[in-house]
């Protein structure tokens, strides 16, 4: 019922700005646009938990309407514009695919502040924020190399965008730091959210012999398949331990709450600026779920790597690293710069897949 009321409220506000204008004086609206459902158990749920924290922390000053299941593409623009019209002062659009739509709406509404997750296009009233997921994925790779008997993991990927390619590379680099011959099989599901298809991809990878699964899609279906087949897997975006109590080794958990609170406070203070934020493990925007179902030495190794990444001692993309075809990319000791990472469109050596172009 709550969702319905919010939807109705948003529509009503869009139709008659007189009504919402009066209310906007009292509480500032900080709005969220989601690509999935807030209970997907993964990506969107993590954003919604952040929103709930924000609501709890600043609930006396703000309200936090949201729109769920907004498809990427032309519909996104309409949805974001609807939010902007309804009197939102700050809008978080929380999917890579909303990028161009957010840019367009930001141009139309110069007085509204926008923040787009994981994108790279900014404007004076459009900030971007992202999490260094690759730091967590590097740790996953190391654990996989320790735990896999076959030396081969399966990776369920969504779309061939830099963010996902970067994650695959980080995982492979982590694994290779433990086992130089580690292989990574990649399957592109071409969806963020389709439990059936994600499960099919998981089954296909397991049938082809991998004994560890990791995913960059949004539901717990692959975890469930891994549990059924008795292999290990890693959770994505949210702690997925409920779907595989004996299966999940750890999960990279998105913890957006602190960031949402910080930016909303800046908005209320009037100190909000358009920035390109890219935080990682050390900032708490990304956390690791408890390391479980693994021997103590593996756990100790994972914790050590996590500490090194946090302290800055270790950067997952440190040379020598070759590209997939064997040509050198980074010289020994050289670190990849953020620009290259954010536009990553090639695999590193060891990934057993042809990158869709």
């Amino acid at each position, binding site marked *: 019922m709550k969702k319905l009321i919010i939807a109705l409220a948003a529509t009503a506000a869009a139709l008659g700005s007189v009504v919402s204008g009066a209310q906007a004086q009292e509480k500032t609206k900080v709005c969220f646009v989601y690509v999935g459902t807030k209970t997907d158990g993964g990506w969107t749920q993590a954003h919604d938990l952040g929103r709930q924290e924000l609501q709890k922390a600043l609930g006396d000053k703000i309200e936090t309407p949201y729109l769920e299941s907004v498809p990427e593409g032309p519909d996104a623009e309409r949805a974001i514009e609807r939010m902007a019209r309804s009197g939102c002062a700050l809008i978080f659009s929380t999917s890579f695919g909303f990028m161009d739509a957010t840019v367009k709406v930001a141009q139309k509404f110069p007085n509204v502040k926008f923040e787009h997750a994981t994108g790279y296009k900014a404007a004076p009233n459009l900030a971007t924020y992202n999490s260094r997921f690759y730091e967590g994925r590097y740790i996953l790779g190391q654990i996989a190399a320790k735990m896999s008997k076959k030396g081969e993991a399966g990776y369920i990927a969504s779309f061939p965008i830099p963010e996902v390619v970067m994650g695959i590379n980080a995982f492979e680099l982590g694994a290779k730091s433990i086992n130089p011959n580690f292989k990574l099989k990649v399957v592109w*599901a071409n969806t963020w*959210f389709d*439990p*059936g298809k994600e499960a099919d991809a998981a089954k296909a990878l397991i049938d082809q012999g991998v004994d560890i699964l990791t995913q960059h899609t949004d*539901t717990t279906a692959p975890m469930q398949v891994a549990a059924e087949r008795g292999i290990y897997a890693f959770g994505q975006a949210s702690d997925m331990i409920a779907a595989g109590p004996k299966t999940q080794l750890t999960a990279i958990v998105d913890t957006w709450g602190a960031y949402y609170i910080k930016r909303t406070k800046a908005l209320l203070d009037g100190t909000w600026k358009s920035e390109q934020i890219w935080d990682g493990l050390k900032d708490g925007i990304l956390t690791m779920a408890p390391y479980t179902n693994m021997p103590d030495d593996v756990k100790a190794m994972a914790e050590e790597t996590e500490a090194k990444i946090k302290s800055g001692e270790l950067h997952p993309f440190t040379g020598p690293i070759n590209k997939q075809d064997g040509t050198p990319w980074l010289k020994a000791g050289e670190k990849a710069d953020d620009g290259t990472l954010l536009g990553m469109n090639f695999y590193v050596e060891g990934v057993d897949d042809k990158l*869709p172009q």
Partner: protein
Amino acid sequence: MIEAILLTIITAATPLVIAAMGELVTERAGVLNLGVEGMMIIGAVCAFAGSYLTGVPLFGVLAGILGGALFSLLFGFLTLTLVTNQVATGLALTLLGLGLSGQLGESFVGIPGVKLAPIVFPVLSEIPFVGPLLFRQDITFYLSIALVIGVNWFLFRSRTGLKLRAIGDNHGSAHALGISVIRTRYLAVMFGGACAGLAGAQLSLVYTPQWVENMSAGRGWIALALVVFASWRPWRVLAGGYIFGAVGILQLHAQAFGIGVPSQFLSMLPYAVTIVVLIIISHNRRTTLINTPACLGKPFVPDR
């Protein structure tokens, strides 16, 4: 390996076949119900609820069937009694189903489900290769095959089936002959709803035993395409369902094998195949006319 792939294909094809068989009967009676996706997702949430609340997955299957049938009754009432536009009402049914199921299922999110246990046939299941594929499956698979055989017999070998087809082809004449058009259509719509509900139950109890909002993810639409693809013939629905399922699964395996076909192209294949088949079918106008229910989607108001 081949066995494992075939098992996955069966799981992927079963919900498509079941939902399409229901829609086939509905459309043969002259009613176009575009709400398959909505009825399917309602079936999925009801099935999960039934299984979770009673602890017996089989009750979940029943709940799914019942949920789908009841939900389709709403469509029946609107289009048959109030004579609303079938296309618009069907689309509305899908939207309503997606929203309503999210609401109903809010408390079930994140709860690991119980997988429907397979029914093992004693001797037959021991046959190598064939046994595990055909005789160690859950009830939804057996029902999908039974549906194809049963519907085929019903439509083309039984008197009631003949009447149903007559209604779909010319409701005016059927009415003049004293056949109850509205009653038959209500039953056909509910049969379609029950099948979509059963397909939904397969999703939340077998395919991925859990409840997630929007978990049908467009399978209802594929089922609708399948009916046209099959030119309203039950056996072709079975074949088509398995072709669609196989293309989806094989493209994933091709990727894992490292075959360098762009995955976007492979994801597109089922739909491309449908379009090609539609072109082939429509090329031969005579067969099209034989199989297409002539009154499909047309409203019927008894004049007396």
